[in-house]
């Protein structure tokens, strides 16, 4: 576990994640209080990454449950493999009759079978899904429940038992208690308001888009091969794009994609022809692309004007 908030920041930085103090504090609290964290925020600000990095920096396993509409217990918790069980009984028919040899009455036969109960109802026939895996895992783990807002309200209610007691009931086997209480991270894009009961059990963390300095640091960390000047320009443009009224506001991941794409194409400044063609890495709708193009043109014009005056002053000096 972490020793302090600074420790969180440091260890996250080692795993290429720049955590603000606010994020680090919440993570530190989560590990100390053993409470799940509900991470909210716009798409592409590193919500999912947070869980991955948390697992990596603690050396825990990460178990991921992606939520979607119609996700049910069978896919999230466990499935009982009837087919396998049936197959086993079929194959072992002879063995079963051996057990039953010499039984004088039906009661005795049933008793003998009952004595072998564990064979029929054992963990052998349980197919563990992410939630059960997290609970029964021998090593401590980080459980990421991604996009919980996509799952149904019933599933949320079902999660409540798990999140408060860290135990689940499998009818065939009884109640399973967690060997290690996993660190739980839930992420939500706010497609749906989460229930109060769930929110109450979690620490809440809202991650917003980073400011210019932070974003630049992130770009430098994740795409070290990018030229500093290009990175600065890209970040400036993306920051101003976020202020526009776009259908889908570009997140950090989009910024990174764009920088990577531009670096790959050997572009080193935004006032080149090629740049407009790569715009679709950051904006995903046609209407948005149009708006972004205009913003970009505006930016290039401003930069050129500035450079123009600088060049002008150089000339003055020469004269």
């Amino acid at each position, binding site marked *: 576990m972490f020793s302090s*908030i600074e420790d969180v920041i440091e260890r996250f930085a080692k795993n290429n994640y720049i955590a603000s*103090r*606010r994020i680090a*504090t*919440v993570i*530190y*609290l989560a590990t*100390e*209080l053993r*409470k799940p*964290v*509900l991470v*909210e*925020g716009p798409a592409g600000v590193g919500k999912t990454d947070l869980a991955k990095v948390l697992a990596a920096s603690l050396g825990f396993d990460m178990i991921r449950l992606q939520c979607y509409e119609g996700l049910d217990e069978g896919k999230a918790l466990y499935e009982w493999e*009837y*087919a396998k069980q*049936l197959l086993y009984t079929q194959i072992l028919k002879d063995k079963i009759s051996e057990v039953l040899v010499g039984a004088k009455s039906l009661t005795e036969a049933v008793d003998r079978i009952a004595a072998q109960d564990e064979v029929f109802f054992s963990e052998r026939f349980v197919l563990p899904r992410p939630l059960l895996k997290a609970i029964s895992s021998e090593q401590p783990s980080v459980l990421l429940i991604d996009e919980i807002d996509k799952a*149904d*309200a*019933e599933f949320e209610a079902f999660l409540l038992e798990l999140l408060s007691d860290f135990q689940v009931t499998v009818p065939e086997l009884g109640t399973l208690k967690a060997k290690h209480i996993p660190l739980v991270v839930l992420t939500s894009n*706010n497609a*749906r*308001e989460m229930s*109060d009961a769930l*929110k*109450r059990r*979690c*620490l*809440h*963390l*809202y991650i917003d888009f980073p400011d210019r300095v932070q974003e630049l640091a992130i770009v430098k960390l994740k795409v070290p091969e990018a030229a500093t000047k290009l990175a600065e320009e890209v970040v400036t443009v993306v920051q101003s794009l976020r202020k526009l009224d776009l259908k889908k506001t570009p997140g950090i991941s989009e910024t990174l994609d764009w920088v990577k794409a531009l670096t790959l194409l050997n572009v080193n400044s935004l006032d080149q022809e090629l740049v407009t063609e790569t715009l679709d890495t950051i904006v995903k709708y046609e*209407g948005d692309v149009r708006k972004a193009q205009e913003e970009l043109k505006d930016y290039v014009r401003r930069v050129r004007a500035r450079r123009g005056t600088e060049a002008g002053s150089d000339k003055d000096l020469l004269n």
Partner: protein
Amino acid sequence: MQEKLVEFANLLRENGVRVSLAETLDAFSASEVTGLSERDAFRAALRATMVKRASELPVFEELFDIYFSGLGEIIKQASQAVQNALSMSDQEFQKFLDQVEKMLQKEGKNLSELARQLLQNNSGEMERKIREASRAVKLNGIERTIEENYFARALARQLGLDKIEAEIKELREQLEKMDIGSELKAKMEEYLERRLKALDDIIRRYVRMEREKRDIKQKEDQRLNQIGEKSFYYLTEEELKKMNEAVTRLAQRLKNVITVRRKRSKKGRFDIKRTLRQNLKYGGVPFKLRFEKRKKEKPQVVILCDVSDSVRNASRFMLQFVYSLQDLYSRVRSFIFVADIGEVTECFRNNDAKEALDVALTGDIINVYAHSNFGYAFRNFVTDHLGAVNKRTTVIVLGDARNNYNLPHDWCLREIRQRAKKVIWLNPESRNTWGFGDSEMDRYAAHCDLVEECRNLNQLYRVVDRLVAG
């Protein structure tokens, strides 16, 4: 500290942030982990445990600033002001305070506790005393600006300001008799006087701050209510913008409710064929039951929106609402009319909200400067677009039914109703004026399943609630 946290939780609740008891307990344990010394960590701890909605974060931030830097900060500032008035550096002031303490030991044996703390600059203890006193006078009940004076006086009385004043006066007299340098004496005297004023100042500012705490909520409430209740006709540019957000949220809410409802009716009758097929791998033993899937009945909506001059402002909103609805449902057909009727479904689908509304309202589709003629529009709808209406369609008419004494042709509406599942009429005019002058509302109302007055956002909310429920 615990008391302070409980009080803070109450304050959050008063300002509309839902904080449960369990969350307050979490805040205790979280603040124990982070400690109090580091302000940012403490703030993050409280934020993570007490505030669970992004929309409530600004309220939290503001209250945290007021509450946790509040009184302590005021006291600190007051003593800083005294120091500045005496024009001393930090070191000099500290030395001076030592001298004051010495003097107090000699002369101030019968000083009250608060006076002593005040003169010795013991801000922590002072803060505690003032808080106690403010609880005694029920300062948290303050609501209006006019009450400030009353509460300031009450708090001063509770703290025994008169007594402290008398004590300090006495001290000054004693000071006269003491034999210390005249310069120091003058300084001491000024110090005593300024300190007394500082206490008064602290009380006043604290009372004002307490009132402001309550105010944040009121301001917010008022603003929302105003917009909610304000008629569509009288909105300013700024309010229009906010209204648009609200309408979009409203439509979103409608969608949320609908997805939940779809879930509930997921299973239909037992499906024998699929059950058999599914269980072949178990040798025909039906381990897994299969049910027929209920057919999702996609809501179909046809909207007829009046965009004539008389309802210009209201129709902007209605169109915004129509636009949001069309975004959410796949089967919405939208028409606008004044006298002619024209379909805007495609236009709404392909354009941004703002552009779409502009196109609809500037007369590219129909002549928007004509005199409204509901009868003519309905008749045209029946002849040209009746195919859009079938037994699953909900028809929503948005308009004031002011027909300019033209033929109402209410038989058209009857015909539409016969084919449709439901006809809903939303009228942006006040109910009292329906049927007067050229209003044909009464005549049309006979052929509607639901007629609602819809002149502001709150009413629109109610209508949506009814639509969702029914």
